[in-house]
């Protein structure tokens, strides 16, 4: 199968593999140790899957904001994203 029209590169492939792995890990984790939804500081009910979604979507906005304010590279933004994601999983 010729996939050259999709313009794959290692950085983008790595990005999607990371998201796929995160989804698979969360699914396995959810099966091994089911967690009840809880209400955090956003006062909304979240499951671990919801928290992953909030982390990823928020990270996208953090990276865009970083690009807008400081430009590339976005290594700094990635550190902020990790802190943000940890915060989401801990308190949201």
């Amino acid at each position: 199968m010729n996939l050259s029209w999709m313009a794959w590169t290692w950085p983008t492939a790595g990005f999607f593999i990371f998201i796929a792995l995160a989804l698979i890990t969360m699914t396995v984790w959810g099966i091994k140790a089911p967690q009840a939804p809880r209400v955090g500081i956003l006062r909304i009910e979240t499951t671990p899957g919801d928290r992953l979604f909030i982390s990823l979507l928020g990270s996208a906005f953090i990276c865009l904001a970083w690009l807008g304010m400081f430009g590339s590279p976005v290594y700094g933004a990635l550190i902020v994203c990790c802190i943000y994601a940890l915060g989401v999983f801990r308190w949201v």
Partner: protein
Amino acid sequence: MKTLNHKHGWAMVIPATIILSIVGVLPLLTVINYSFFDIFILDKRFWIGLEWYQELMQSPRFWASLGRSLLFSTLILTIQLPLGILIALAIPKRGIWVAICLMTMSVPLLIPWNVIPIIWLNYLRIDTGFLGQFFDFIGVDFDWKFNPIHTWLALILMDVWHWTSLVILLAYSSLSTIPTAYYQAAAIDRASRWQIFRYIELPKMSGILLMAILLRFMDSLMIYTEAFGINSGGPQNATLFLGIDLGEQIKAFDYGPSAARSVIYFIIILFIVWAFKTALDRQKSGGLK
């Protein structure tokens, strides 16, 4: 009806999942891939990393378009939602007029989008159109071509005409599910018309109204065909919305930046949909009280 609760029921959704991933996920992945390239034709593409995103985030034009699109969506929602509810309340509950009203209301929804700006530009002509003649009669020099406020007015009028019906149909459908016993109880309690609306009709409609807001918000935020048909984003970019910027870039074969734009629009829409879904869930569980 017998409900199937089989252990391997999930296997039945595999074909749908495969088709969805081909028509939905693959194009999305491709667009994200393209957004990191400078592409004119696929064979000649250059990896440039996050440059398009940086350019967009730092371009005043992008933020201005985003602001205009948000303003447009807010304006048409503040008009269409109350207007739609009011008209839905005025439609009779039974009898021959129900069908006539609903049929008439649906007509604007059935007209192809690219025809609508042409219809409205004809309405606004000063020599033949009824709106143009009306503005001439009341002494307003209505200049949709060069006066930004008038272009906005024309766009809002057009969108209200085109899409209020959607709100009406949704609101009416949920109004018609309210049992008459509720109204009888309200009449016994001598509830005023406002109280009936506030405590019976509005709570019953709220779920569907949130859907209506979501649909209208997403559609109007990405408005392209109608706005382009009226004034191509003019005068002097006063009606340059997100959709028009994107459309122009695609027409110019600027696939890299338009892909980056699409990804940014996608995550904005994703956030809005998530916010609405969360609000809807909270409301269902009674969290908003």
